[in-house]
């Protein structure tokens, strides 16, 4: 088993885990965490694609690697805004829940 395949499988698992967490975890911070995990899983899979493209003496295709770096920064920006929103919501409402009062599945 190659490292690429292993990390592909790990990445898939991480995506699955985070999708589950994103759906069921009640607190927005947990959802945010799951989103970050989802992002990292996607990035990891991109890394595997990059690794598959190792050629010309490089250990990996530099284009996806560069894109992942941009992606990490974008994801961080989202996290920063989300945390700020969450904390302000916590101050305003005393509770940082994004559920609405009505409805039970």
């Amino acid at each position: 088993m190659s490292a690429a395949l292993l990390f592909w499988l790990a990445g898939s698992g991480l995506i699955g885990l985070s999708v589950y967490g994103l759906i069921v975890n009640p607190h927005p911070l947990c959802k945010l965490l799951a989103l970050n995990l989802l992002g990292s899983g996607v990035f990891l899979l991109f890394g595997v694609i990059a690794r598959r493209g190792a050629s010309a003496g490089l250990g990996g295709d530099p284009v996806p690697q560069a894109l992942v770096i941009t992606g990490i920064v974008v994801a961080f920006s989202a996290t920063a805004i989300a945390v700020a929103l969450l904390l302000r919501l916590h101050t305003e409402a005393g509770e940082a829940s994004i559920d609405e009062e009505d409805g039970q599945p």
Partner: protein
Amino acid sequence: METGFDIALALLLLCVGGWSVIARNMMTAVIVFIAYGLLLSLAWVRLHAIDVSLTEAAIGSGATGLLMVIAAHKVAGDTKRVVQLSRGFHVLAAVFAALVAVGIAALAFVLPGEPSSLAAPVLERLPDSGLGNPVAGVLFVFRSFDTLLEKVVLLLALIGVWALARDADWGGVPGLRLFRERHSVLTLLARTLPPIGFVFAIYMTWAGADVPGGAFQGGTVLAAMWILVMVAGVRRPPRISSPPLRLAIVAGPVVFLAIGFLGFLAPGAFLAYPEGFAKPLIVAMETALTLSIAVILGLLIAGPPKGEDAP
């Protein structure tokens, strides 16, 4: 041996990631997530992506982790559950999530056999720019448009965070959501470490053109130093309306844009570098970016302005 290590790492990633998803206590989840980030940067090393590894450690794990720790600390008391999910719903969610995972995993076996790669074209054209690090080449030469926009994204993240200030607090100092202490040995660290961190950060940026590293990683280290100084109370955070601060925020984007427009003049295309000047321009740009990134990251972590509250 290596395969064994990879298997262990992959399993560990899954376990730790899963733990952070199911952990009951939010603080635990966040700390586990930080550990996960560090493991992930190891995985990136194994995937021969040192640049990504550094970025993941600095931003994905470090800065994100710090933000989440702050948040988890503040909202630790949230217990209200408006919506109670039934067990059946959990099972349903698990089934769908598993289907997604299995589907993606299965794709590994059906991806086209002949991997496509841009490694060769990148290497072929890299020498024109004078850079030695192909990832930096992609970021600052071939796809610098993405990188420019990414800087706009960062600015906007700052706007997004600042948007959450109260009107009365506008123009004040960031509310440093970390705990602040007066009589802490942290002040000693905050007085001694930053210059060293600064040297290290500049080194990372400087070296980023040729070896892994770059403005982002350097900027993060610098931001960490700045946060340390602010948290320890050695220096008050600046007012967000202060002109020098604003200048620092926009310095990187301004230089980037200026060089982009310069391209219209010299080789005749936006974001194209005049022949022979690529490297110096890129280094100048990266230096300015390091400063801006550091300031923006620091401000993002420090949070919206909170007015002149008691230290």
